[in-house]
């Protein structure tokens, strides 16, 4: 039978009508439920006794407008921190993960250093690292390195996230099946070549979603530099708030951060879905 000769049967037409009715019904229920829940939440908050003063202190349009330019300037600092830190973290993380996989006896000290580094920097709260680096390092009076708060905050963020990302890379490397390593060894590839051409390329593909997750987290943690007085968006908002007794700028900053992290979060979801689809379609590229 040809494709043109086919006419849907009565049973098929009836099925389609039923499916379309089901879809309409689902849509109506979903919309109704949304309206009820969100209207309920709005009314609940607006009718709470403290709402007028909260509205005035946190959601004041005039203050939002007034603080906007300095927040925007400060946010540029956050973006800079993020953009500079991200590639450095990737390099540091992969280097540390590879150092932990090293087998050569000559590299034993490197391996120990890598373990100590991850244990130490993953264990210390990032906020504490920022404070310690920004206030402690310049007192060393090191020659040839910048002594700005920005620089040392950046170093603190890179050190902290480098440890996380190293562990992500390590789990990716360890998830590559041993038969792949055996296969590379059977071809007489050296340990370094096995890592470089066989293990790491497969590992990196697998860890992209968790890596992006860490970067969403890093975007937010750039706000920690406010603790040492780097004039970022949060510091700018606090500065304004302390001067004008109004906290609306903090909400504005929150919106800035959400606006920056949501696209990356969606990208994470999309990449994760694509990976699953490809894995099940049997086409890994």
């Amino acid at each position, binding site marked *: 039978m040809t494709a043109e000769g086919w006419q849907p049967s009565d049973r098929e037409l009836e099925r389609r009508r039923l499916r379309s009715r089901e879809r309409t019904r689902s849509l109506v229920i979903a919309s109704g439920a949304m309206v009820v829940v969100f209207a309920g939440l709005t009314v609940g908050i607006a009718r709470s006794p403290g709402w007028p003063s909260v509205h005035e202190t946190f959601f004041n349009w005039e203050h939002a407008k007034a603080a906007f330019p300095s927040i925007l300037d400060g946010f540029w600092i956050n973006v800079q921190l993020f953009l500079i830190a991200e590639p450095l973290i990737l390099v540091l993380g992969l280097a540390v993960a590879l150092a932990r996989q090293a087998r050569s006896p000559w590299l034993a000290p490197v391996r120990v250093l890598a373990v100590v580094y991850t244990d130490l920097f993953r264990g210390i709260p990032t906020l504490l690292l920022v404070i310690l680096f920004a206030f402690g390092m310049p007192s060393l009076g090191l020659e040839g390195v910048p002594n700005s708060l920005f620089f040392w905050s950046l170093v603190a963020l890179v050190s902290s996230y480098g440890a996380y990302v190293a562990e992500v890379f390590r789990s990716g490397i360890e998830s590559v099946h041993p038969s792949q390593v055996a296969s590379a060894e059977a*071809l007489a590839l050296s340990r370094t070549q096995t890592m470089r051409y066989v293990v790491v390329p497969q590992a990196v593909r697998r860890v992209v979603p968790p890596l992006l997750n860490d970067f969403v987290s890093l975007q937010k943690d750039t706000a920690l530099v406010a603790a040492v007085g780097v004039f970022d968006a949060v510091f700018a908002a606090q500065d304004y708030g302390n001067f004008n007794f109004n906290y609306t700028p903090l909400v504005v900053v929150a919106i800035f951060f959400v606006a920056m992290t949501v696209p990356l979060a969606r990208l994470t979801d999309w990449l994760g879905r694509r990976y699953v689809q490809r894995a099940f379609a*049997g086409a890994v590229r």
Partner: protein
Amino acid sequence: MTTLLEVSDLRKTYGDRVVLADVSLTVDAHDVVCLIGSSGSGKSTLLRCLNLLEDVDDGVIVFDGREISDPRVDRREVRSRMGLVFQAYNLFPHLTVLDNCTLAPRRVHGLSRAEAEERARGLLAQFGLADQAAKHPDRLSGGQQQRAALVRALCTEPRLLLLDEITAALDPELVGEVLAIVRDLAAAGTTMVLATHEMAFARDVATSVCFLEGGRILEHGPPEQIFTDPREERTRQFLRRVLPDGPENP
């Protein structure tokens, strides 16, 4: 006949479990040695020991006139003269078939990309995979993947080819295309040691057959003798189970 590989009194244990014991085996150039025996009899372990993927616990392996069971031996150098094909293909999923085949020639044997690709394309064409060179392994059928894995091993021009049950993971209809290639290789004089469950194939191609049982070579001889008149009762039982027309079962 020159002796290419000589194994004497090989022993391999995992903890308390003895996987190989007193295994002795001689492989001359152009020999095709088939290892047969039930699953867990030590066939794969023996091949992995020969390729130095496993350390042996006792015994000596001499390959090409040099002892390779010496811990000081350069494993990479030994492996660069030996090919191993796995049951599960173990192609690299992130590389194309062509890149799979050129990786070792380029990185280990120092061939230029052009030389390596020329050799790989020649072998791929010979094994009916010319059209698949640019594809990733997961796009290929099981039989094509296993043929690609064979080509990958052959691209390094090994002196000895080890095949570890290379048809065990294939659909029955795909087994033939892979075995046909091994048959061609045998006819061309490639020295091979292969573990297999394909008895009819072993009978045709092997110059000698080893029956392994519980990590020992229980019986060893030319295929005509092993398949028609085995000395050991265990061999007889095994062959009766796997061969419909085995000994005493016409």
